[in-house]
């Protein structure tokens, strides 16, 4: 039996030993102190052990010792930089989990994604997080950059930090782009094919660069492996290196900039002093970071569970069939828009107004200039902003030119992005355009979204079949079939009114094709107004619709989610 005295002695010693182990792990913070840090309490010991941590612990030495209070005002930073790196870590962790299930080969990549979605619990959530996180990272990187520009936080000692940030923007975009190919679906395959084909335009080395990227004249097994390795090794390593440099500059060298008003504005000395008051990393900044992390994760999970439609997975890549609307991810639309401009034709057109006829297309090759000269030029200018803009003022009102240029550039990017969408400036034969509107080759259109039980068999002819009460035999009617047919009628009649097609004869034919399978044919016979001849073969688009398809993908926890109405597929 232990005597009371001895027991207390033992307890004290054990407690001491435990505390020591904790201190070894936390680089100097005892149990009590740890609790105080997490609660946001003042230090429990003297000298303040929280400063020591920054020299004894690797992970803490890369964190800031303090930030000035004024620089942490929410409306100054909006925590954009924090969330950019937050999403980088989300990508890193979900990416490693995805790597477990993914196989980078053309025959296995797509099935491995299908398997991830069909037989791995939380597989869809991990994939959605990775996808949403990637898009969020692009958004936050751009917003962070915009904020830095508007608050003029790139000046003087922060010039180099801006430069590393610019390179990080490039790496972020490349990470997104290289990851785009990996699911090996139609969307991925063709977006990347078009993206890499830009390299072709480079003089002398274009073909070789393209070959280096794709591994073969067309993207195949070699190309996929190259993009995979870029995506999971080279680019993340580059990002980690650049983030380290970028972050270390902020955390240990110059800190976050103060809002301009505290530096050059007309504020009281007390306010200035208060703005410069130090907020220690432990506990203030640290607890705030934990809070922001919880907030970020919560929003991400919440969005995925209730609102996000899910990362898209189109049909498996088919190198033999170019989809009509091959589309880059939205953050590259501006580039697609640029490529649609032909500088030679534009200048020729302009000069023609003054009666000068000149042939420029061989001096100004469109793809080379718009794809390989202008974008890098824009990027270099972006990187060199702090070295070009020598105006020492930081206040918005004292740098109207810089802010004006920034807003103008933003506007241009929006316009270019609009021009980059498939809606703009791509001429399609009228029938193809109408079909694509109603039943796109990839993704879902109105025809796909007609509920299976409304697909009443029959031949419906535009301008002949009445638009209302199309299904008198269905007691629930067929509003979606009717509205789709009406849309079809309107598209055809509009095209006829615009003179794109003459004598249209448009059909929508619904047939029973197999058990739980309907065939919908859109057929549009017309006379070409230019040639005056009937277009042959008659344009048509055939869609097969299986009853078990849950169209208009709904999120997992959406209460509207319903199970398909048919029997399971017999196998």
């Amino acid at each position, binding site marked *: 039996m232990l005597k009371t005295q001895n027991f207390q002695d033992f307890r004290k010693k054990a407690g001491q030993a435990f505390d020591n182990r904790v201190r070894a792990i936390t680089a100097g913070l005892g149990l009590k102190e740890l609790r105080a840090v*997490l*609660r*946001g*309490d003042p230090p429990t010991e003297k000298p303040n052990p929280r400063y020591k941590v920054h020299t004894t612990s690797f992970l803490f030495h890369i964190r800031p010792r303090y930030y000035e209070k004024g620089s*942490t005002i929410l409306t100054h930073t909006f925590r954009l930089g924090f969330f950019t790196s937050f999403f980088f870590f989300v990508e890193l962790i979900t990416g490693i989990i995805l790597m477990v299930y993914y196989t980078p080969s053309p*025959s296995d990549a797509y*099935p491995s994604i299908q398997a991830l*979605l*069909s*037989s*791995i*619990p*939380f597989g*869809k*959530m991990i994939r959605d997080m990775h996808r949403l996180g990637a898009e969020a990272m692009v958004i936050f990187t751009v917003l962070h950059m915009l904020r830095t520009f508007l608050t003029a936080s790139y000046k003087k000692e922060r010039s180099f930090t801006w430069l590393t940030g610019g390179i990080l923007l490039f790496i972020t975009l490349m990470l997104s782009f290289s990851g785009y190919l990996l699911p090996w679906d139609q969307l991925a395959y063709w977006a990347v094919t078009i993206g890499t084909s830009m390299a072709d335009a480079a003089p002398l080395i274009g073909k070789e660069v393209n070959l280096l990227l794709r591994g073969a004249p067309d993207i195949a097994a070699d190309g996929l492996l190259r993009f995979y390795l870029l995506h999971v090794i080279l680019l993340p390593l580059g990002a980690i290196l650049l983030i380290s440099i970028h972050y270390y500059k902020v955390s240990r060298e110059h800190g976050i900039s103060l809002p301009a008003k505290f530096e050059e504005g007309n504020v009281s000395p007390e306010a200035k002093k208060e703005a410069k008051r130090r907020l220690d990393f432990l*506990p*203030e900044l640290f*607890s705030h970071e*934990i*809070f922001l992390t*919880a*907030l970020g994760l*919560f929003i991400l*999970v*919440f969005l995925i*569970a209730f609102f996000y439609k899910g990362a898209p997975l189109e*049909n*498996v890549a*088919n190198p033999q069939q170019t989809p009509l609307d091959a589309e880059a991810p939205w953050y590259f639309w501006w580039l697609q828009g640029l490529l649609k401009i032909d500088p030679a034709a534009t200048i020729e057109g302009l000069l023609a107004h003054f009666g000068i006829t000149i042939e420029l297309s061989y001096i100004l090759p469109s793809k080379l200039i718009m794809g390989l000269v202008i974008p890098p030029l824009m990027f270099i200018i972006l990187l060199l902003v702090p070295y070009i803009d020598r105006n020492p003022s930081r206040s918005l009102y004292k740098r109207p030119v810089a802010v004006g240029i920034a807003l103008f550039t933003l506007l241009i990017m929006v316009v270019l992005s609009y021009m980059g969408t498939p809606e703009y400036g791509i001429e399609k034969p009228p029938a193809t355009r109408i079909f694509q509107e109603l039943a796109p080759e990839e993704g879902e259109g109105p025809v796909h979204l007609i509920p299976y039980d409304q697909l009443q068999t029959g*031949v419906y*002819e535009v301008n002949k079949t009445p638009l209302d009460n199309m299904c008198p035999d269905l007691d629930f009617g067929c509003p979606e079939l009717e509205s789709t047919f009406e849309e079809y009628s309107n598209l055809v009649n509009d095209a006829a009114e615009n003179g794109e097609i003459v*004598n*249209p*004869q448009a*059909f929508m*034919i619904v047939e029973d*094709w*197999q*058990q739980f*399978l309907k*065939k919908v044919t859109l*057929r549009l*016979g017309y006379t070409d107004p230019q040639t005056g001849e*009937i277009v042959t*073969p*008659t344009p048509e688009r*055939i869609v*097969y619709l*299986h009853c*078990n*398809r*849950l169209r208009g993908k709904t999120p*997992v*926890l959406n209460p509207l989610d319903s*199970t*398909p109405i048919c029997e*399971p*597929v*017999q*196998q």
Partner: protein
Amino acid sequence: MSQRRVNIEIAIGIIITLLMTAILVVYGMNEKQRMELFDKQEKAKAIEVGAGLFATNCSPCHGIQGKGVEGVWPPLNDPFFFNGRLQEVGWTGTQEDYIISTVSSGRLVSTRPDKYPGSGKPAMPAWSERYGGPLRDDQIKNIAAFVMNWKATAGEVPEAPATTGPPAGTDITVELPAGDATHGEQIATRDCFVCHVTSTAGPAWAATADQPGIGDRAATRIEQADYTGTATSAEQYLFESIVLPGTYLVSPFQNLMPPDFGTKLTLQDVADLIAYLLTIK
């Protein structure tokens, strides 16, 4: 940052972390159902894609509805294909494997040369790109999923009731008995629809953008200057087109139609068929 703010953050942080955990738990409980649903949808998608591939690659021989052509190419939607075919060829795997294997590598010679000789040599070409064909493995799997979907309805396809009587022969001047358009439509669906599906409004005999249905067309064709046949009426023109398909070809068509309908169809069948076709104006 004031102590108060830190406290609020701690409180909110704990609440949202708990909320997030709750969402994850509910999400996780739903996972089994979601995965089943996804699986079901992928199978449905395979059938949809397979239907399109079947229509472009397989239907020229096996028919758009898999009925095949009697005496040449075997049907894929009859009960025997799903119940007796595996035993007949001694296949030990699943029916789906059998389809995948056959489609991939084709057939050098027919296993039933008397009944279904197929296209000659080979009886069926190899379709997998591994063996020189045009299709990838995933596409062949989709075709197999589509063909397998006939299993439940195999044998249910309505057939035209068989008629007995003398064969039609090739003399188009024979007087036809009174035709039954309803039976004629069944014959058209059974025998003609395999190939005649190329016009704007469905089967080839329907009205299209630029011409009326076959009923009216038949009457005007024989008056055309380039008409090379011997028919003198719409009935005779249709009769001729069925039993002597090469006599007159409308540009740009080629003569790909089996020449033996005169021996396969009875006179009554032909009369019914013509009666049906003449109703299509």
